[in-house]
């Protein structure tokens, strides 16, 4: 038996810290007062020791429920909003779910799950709950096809990087993220807000970017994170002016130099960095020198409990912050025999830095020669006239596939110059890339699809 103190989120809701809030576009709640309140109508004791599936339509109620359930349930499975209904049955079986906390109890009436507890945004007074155990946190991978994998974490592992970084300096931070907090990148920010004594402003699906930024300004958000696609969307919208966060972070996709420079220009006073994290490997590392890629000397030695190596071109991470297992009847091993997670993210050494080049599964094969679409996008995105691009495979009867690129021009770019810009893109690609990596065709588009997880949609990957 461990004699260590059990660690749960409610322990960070300090009744002496005032003015902490959790808000979305419609509601706001005091993080000071909720310690004496319940969103479960006082039924928390019923889920003690159970494996709970948390399924709420919105992030606001999900956040309240996480704060209440952690330390009481045996397990808590966070369902992201885009979870396909036909996956739920398998996930319930694999995670041995025996209770559901939901704002839509009627949907679960015939599910066969023993206990359905209704969660409500209308908080009611309740006795301050006691932490009973370390709840296992279950998250879903954000792959685009097939049944998502269930990834098991402890709160201690999830918050390892937060504790290592120490508290934010200065006034209590106001955190925000473009992510949904039921995904790894968003959950990190939510946990940072709770553990660091700050406030949190949630994103709202479907909200216009200008309205979202107006809300971030009104709430005086100081710390904010998102994927490079989220940030490009913000930069493209023109809505960034007047918003001046102190801390800007990118994660979840490759942060190329163009987006880092774009953010530096938009937020001259901010600390801008990119972090590497995945649902399985946890937070790997942060890069705060404003440059893409990461210093080669980060590979090898162990820092803050994280050790990295590169095998067959992919980044492997051994970390106390990594998930402890995939959960389920047919679950594969999460790590190799040495305890390293294979991230599937491919890197390449250039000079004294490693650069991310793409996902192992996303390679395009052009007559036997290979390319990661992200390598091409990084070159295209360097042009000042380009805001965002996507390289993709197009089938070819000659080489099996060729590469083509869809490009969004930066705002204010004269569309009459498109032929000239196309030629410059091609000239840049020819100067920096092997011939098979140069797009055969370039198409200018108004928008590129971004997935629910905030990543550029790659339908061919």
């Amino acid at each position: 038996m461990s004699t260590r103190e059990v660690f749960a989120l409610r322990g960070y809701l300090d009744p002496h810290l005032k003015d902490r809030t959790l808000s979305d576009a419609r509601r706001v709640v005091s993080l000071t007062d909720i310690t004496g309140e319940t969103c479960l109508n006082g039924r928390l004791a019923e889920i003690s020791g159970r494996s709970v599936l948390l399924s709420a339509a919105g992030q606001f109620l999900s956040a309240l429920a996480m704060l209440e359930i952690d330390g009481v349930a045996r397990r808590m499975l966070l369902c992201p909003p885009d979870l396909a209904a036909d996956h739920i049955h398998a996930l319930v079986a694999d995670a041995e779910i025996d209770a559901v906390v939901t704002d839509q109890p009627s949907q679960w009436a015939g599910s066969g799950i023993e206990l359905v507890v209704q969660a409500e945004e209308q908080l009611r007074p309740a006795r301050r709950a006691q932490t009973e155990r370390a709840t296992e946190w279950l998250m879903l991978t954000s792959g685009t096809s097939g049944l998502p994998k269930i990834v098991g974490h402890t709160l201690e592992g999830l918050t390892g990087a937060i504790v290592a970084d120490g508290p934010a300096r200065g006034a209590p931070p106001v955190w925000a993220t473009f992510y949904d907090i039921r995904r790894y990148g968003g959950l990190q920010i939510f946990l940072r807000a709770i553990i660091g004594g700050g406030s949190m402003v949630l994103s709202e699906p479907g909200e216009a970017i200008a309205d979202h930024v107006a809300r971030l300004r009104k709430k005086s958000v100081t710390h904010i994170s998102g994927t490079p696609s989220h940030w490009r969307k913000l930069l493209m919208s023109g809505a960034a002016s007047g918003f001046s966060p102190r801390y800007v972070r990118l994660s979840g996709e490759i942060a190329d130099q163009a987006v880092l420079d774009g953010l530096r220009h938009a937020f001259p006073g901010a600390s801008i960095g990119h972090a590497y994290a995945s649902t399985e490997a946890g937070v790997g590392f942060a890069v705060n020198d404003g440059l893409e890629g990461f210093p080669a000397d980060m590979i090898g030695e162990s820092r803050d409990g994280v050790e990295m190596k590169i095998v067959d071109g992919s980044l492997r991470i051994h970390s106390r912050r990594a998930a402890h297992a995939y959960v389920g009847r047919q679950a594969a091993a999460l790590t190799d025999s040495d305890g390293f997670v294979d991230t599937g993210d491919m890197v390449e050494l250039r000079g004294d830095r490693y650069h991310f080049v793409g996902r192992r599964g996303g390679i395009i094969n052009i007559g036997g020669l290979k390319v990661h679409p992200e390598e091409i996008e990084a070159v295209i995105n360097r042009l000042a006239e380009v805001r965002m691009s996507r390289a993709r495979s197009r089938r070819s009867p000659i080489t099996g596939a060729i590469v083509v690129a869809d490009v969004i021009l930066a705002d204010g770019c004269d569309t009459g110059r498109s032929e000239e810009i196309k030629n410059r893109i091609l000239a840049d690609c020819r100067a920096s890339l092997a011939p098979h990596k140069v797009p055969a065709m370039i198409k200018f588009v108004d928008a590129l699809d971004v997935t629910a997880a905030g990543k550029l949609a790659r339908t061919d990957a």
Partner: protein
Amino acid sequence: MSVRLRIIAAIQQIAAEQQVTLPPLEDNLSLHETGFDSLGFAILVARLEDDLGIDPFTISEDASFPLTIGDFIRAYENVHA
């Protein structure tokens, strides 16, 4: 512009991009004498598909790939006719 002229223009455009010096594009010139590699032809076929709306080499499963410029152009003209 005729199909033939559009094909010739596309070949010349790709040759310029790839810095390939083309010999005179006569019908009996074999495709490998153009100086194009398979990537060059892959790009040509994709661009012509966008321009002309057809890819004669994918439409028919048993179509053999042409050997000369003349065969190549006829493959398009035959589909178009």
